[in-house]
């Protein structure tokens, strides 16, 4: 698989799983501040792990990668109680059936995007709207708003992070099935 194919596969198959991954991490890791770091670490491991061959199920692979990462971290931290540790070992991710297609109901995606725009600071929002709705280039946006291209660039940088959060994390897949009950004792193997 070439780098481009790998990237395309990653964008297409792995990124849509972000709500699932996020839930899995939150359910099994106490420190909320570390969730984003863990998520990105999982992404990196998945990306490297799939450099040569793709797994049959992206979701099973992502979740088992997440599980292994949490176990590694817990071992290294050594402050985790025996209980948590045992719990973690028992933790077998069950695949939940989120179809990536569900992310794409156009109107709900549009709603998500609009909601994300509404949360942006005014200037940032205006820049993103001119760039994405009006289709102006960054230079044209700068001229229209009477600000420098550097400023436009900074606002785009800020805006894209907010959009990613809105699109990938809450995901249009918010209507997908709950993966399993929230208690952790389930030893039911998938």
């Amino acid at each position: 698989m070439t780098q481009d194919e790998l990237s395309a596969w990653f964008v297409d198959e792995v990124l849509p799983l972000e709500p699932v991954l996020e839930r899995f991490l939150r359910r099994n890791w106490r420190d909320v501040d570390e969730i984003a770091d863990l998520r990105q670490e999982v992404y990196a491991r998945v990306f490297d792990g799939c450099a040569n061959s793709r797994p049959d199920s992206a979701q099973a692979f992502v979740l088992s990668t997440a599980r292994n990462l949490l176990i590694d971290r817990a071992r290294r931290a050594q402050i985790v109680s025996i209980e948590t540790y045992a719990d973690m070992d028992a933790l077998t991710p069950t695949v939940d059936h989120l179809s990536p297609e569900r992310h794409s109901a156009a109107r709900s995606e549009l709603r998500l995007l609009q909601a994300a725009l509404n949360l942006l600071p005014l200037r940032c929002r205006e820049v993103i709207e001119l760039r994405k709705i009006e289709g102006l280039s960054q230079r044209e946006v700068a001229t229209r708003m009477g600000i420098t291209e550097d400023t436009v660039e900074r606002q785009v940088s800020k805006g894209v992070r907010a959009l990613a959060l809105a699109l990938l994390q809450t995901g249009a897949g918010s209507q997908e099935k709950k993966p399993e009950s929230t208690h952790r004792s389930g030893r039911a193997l998938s």
Partner: protein
Amino acid sequence: MTANDVIERQAADWLARKDGDRWTPEQQQALDDWLAASTLHRVAYLRLDSAWKRADRLRALQAAERPQATPRAPAALLARPWARRALGGLALALMAWVLAGDFNLGKPDTERYATAVGKREAVALADGSRLTLNTATRVRTAVTAQERRVWLDQGEAFFDVAHDASRPFVVIVGTQRVTVLGTKFSLRRDGERLQVAVLEGRVKVQSDGAQATVLTREDAAVADARNLLVTKKTPQQLQASLSWLQGKLIFDQISLAEAAQQFNRYSHRQLVIADPAAAQIRIGGSFDAGNVEAFARLLHVGFGLEVQQQGDEIRISSPAS
């Protein structure tokens, strides 16, 4: 600030810079180096880039709010190199066809074109636009000085529309109208259901009396009279869905039932999947659309399925156990 925060900010800065108008080859090199330095960099960038591209959908708001808005310079939307590669073969075929002298200049009357089952044909319109008709397809075209119209009465066609802002290009599919804003896309009609895949540029899809939806590059949509569902496709998926341009069917782990449906569009010899267990087998790969017999043989050899041929019917069933 966590490690991820730092990387995400850097990735966002790169993306914003690349999105701007001052991007240089040196910067591209620097970005490539940064991406290669760590997979954490790469995945952070891919994640933001994917969101940024999906935000193109916001453009639909423009059409909804101000239908009369002047079209923007489409430079950024056009000229995708991968698309050109995908269409290389088609372009050659069309060129041969044009050189053969079948070029039809400025006729206002309605022209009719049709293909038989299993056939594929290229059609050049008087304005320089090109259509490729897939199996069992019927279209009518009318090109005048004011307007370009195509009726897709049946089947599937790929459109490579010559840019001409003064003459709108409209495809009428039953009750739905697809207005083209200079682009390459395919349409498939299945009764009243319409499937759209956009390779380049933008198209507007509108049902009678309903609000218009604008589709952009790499969008695919399924529409009936009331509903429209848009999905984003990767270049690979789009190429797979346009593989018929090369006479191929490309399946990515679809069920045998779906695969049979696809094959059956291209041949009078129909595949019949006899039992549910066989129908659910997953099929992947690239096949000759016109060679259903080879596909059936493969099912026998690869999956041990029983293949029985009776007249124009090929029955596929699970082996008797």
